[in-house]
């Protein structure tokens, strides 16, 4: 069973979102997502300053198996990307919720965060997919 930390927010498309003290949010893919993808070998991350609407493709993660899109969980502007992943994409397999974060985003409207799933709602999404 995959790990789903209680203090994060989630999307149906398997991104996790963490509110940071500076008002930005950190975004990554969930433990369930990295398990489905298998060994990750390449990340195509957005440019700092790029703006995305909620639900838009903003990054690509590639595993030995396939390429998979990552969607912006909320609208906003990219303020930082995780440079560690350029040379060590496998960090996402090892630590999906920690060192394996993909990017930080400054949300356009803080209200959108409320529409994200909490841990128990995301757990239901994962369970529905596994059956």
């Amino acid at each position, binding site marked *: 069973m995959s790990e789903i930390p209680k203090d994060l927010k989630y999307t149906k498309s398997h991104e996790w979102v963490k509110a940071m003290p500076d008002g930005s949010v950190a975004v990554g893919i969930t433990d369930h997502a990295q398990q489905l993808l*298998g*060994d990750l*070998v*390449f990340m*195509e991350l957005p440019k700092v300053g790029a703006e995305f609407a909620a639900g838009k493709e903003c990054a*690509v993660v*590639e595993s*030995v*198996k*396939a*390429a998979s899109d990552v969607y912006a969980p909320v609208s906003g502007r990219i303020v930082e990307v995780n440079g560690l992943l*350029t040379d060590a994409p*496998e960090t996402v*397999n090892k630590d999906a919720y920690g060192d394996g974060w993909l990017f930080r985003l400054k949300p356009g409207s803080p209200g959108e965060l409320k529409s994200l799933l909490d841990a128990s709602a995301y757990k239901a999404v994962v369970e529905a997919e596994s059956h």
Partner: protein
Amino acid sequence: MGYRTPLYDTHVKMGAKIVDFGGWDMPLHYGSQIEEHHKVRQDAGMFDVSHMNVVDIKGANVRPFLGLLMANSVDKLRTQGKAMYTCMLNARGGVIDDLIVYYMNEQWFRLVMNSSTRSKDLAWLDATSREMEGVSILPRPDLGIIAVQGPNAREKVYQALGEGLRSATEKLKPFFATSIGELFVATTGYTGEDGFELILPGKAAPYSWQGLAEAGVAPIGLGARDTLRLEAGMNLYGHDMDETTTPLESGLAWTVGWDPASRNFVGREVLERQRAEGVTRKLVGLVLEGKGVLRDHQKVICGSAGEGEITSGGFSPTLGKAIALARLPTAVAAGSRCDVEVRGKRLAARVVKYPFVRNGKSCVE
């Protein structure tokens, strides 16, 4: 639920991620595909390939029968146990399947064919055999296949299955096989490493697998099987060739048995014409210069020479780079540069001779 090999329960117990593979429930990996890949290159790993189609061809006329059906020449098989890689073609020279033929004796040749092509292969064999006396087609669904591959594979097989095997198999050169009771041991494989392919009664497979695991042979899923064969520059049916491409367009000219000229195998006419006129496309290797991953069907742009397509693309764990087999215009030379279209962007790649990796070592600069 799909078809299952005799090792299905064993895979589940060993923590395999099971996926549907052409109608079969097969292990994709047992944790990490990349670790499994390295294990085979550096030590020893085992694959359950019992889904593959073992067919025994028996009778007085087996040799002329296979001489008609196979693009490679069974005349090359004169020593008992000798194995040969070949394509089986349609009348247009297209590849129905690629397979290995083992010569056991004049009355018995063994074929190991792909799983995905099983029904059309058997239909083709049956239809052709009806026109010829003295040929029996005997599919062997009762058999399982365990491929044990890697630099330490042979030693670990002896450790697991008994030292008695050593004297019977240690002198086997590559591409040979021998039968020891119910066990068929072949020095063939699909990884570019030394090792054995063991064909054995399906009911004996779980016990042998367990013994191999205890000897330190790691279970390897079909994911790593694909990255290993791609590094080794070995074609995959349905990707690098199919019924619309000939061996000459698929990097397999070396498998065509042109001599004797009198052997009129199915597809020969088309191959002779292509040989005389030259082919317009060929299979080459690609190495991506920068970061990214090459995938099947991506477009390859070769300047004024024209365009082509990736037939097998992926990430090479040994090289740490993306590699591919691609079908490109014949004019494109090894060493030249081309662009691959990946999600609307053009990434630079180099055309190389393959294999990319052999016996654990990189073959590209």
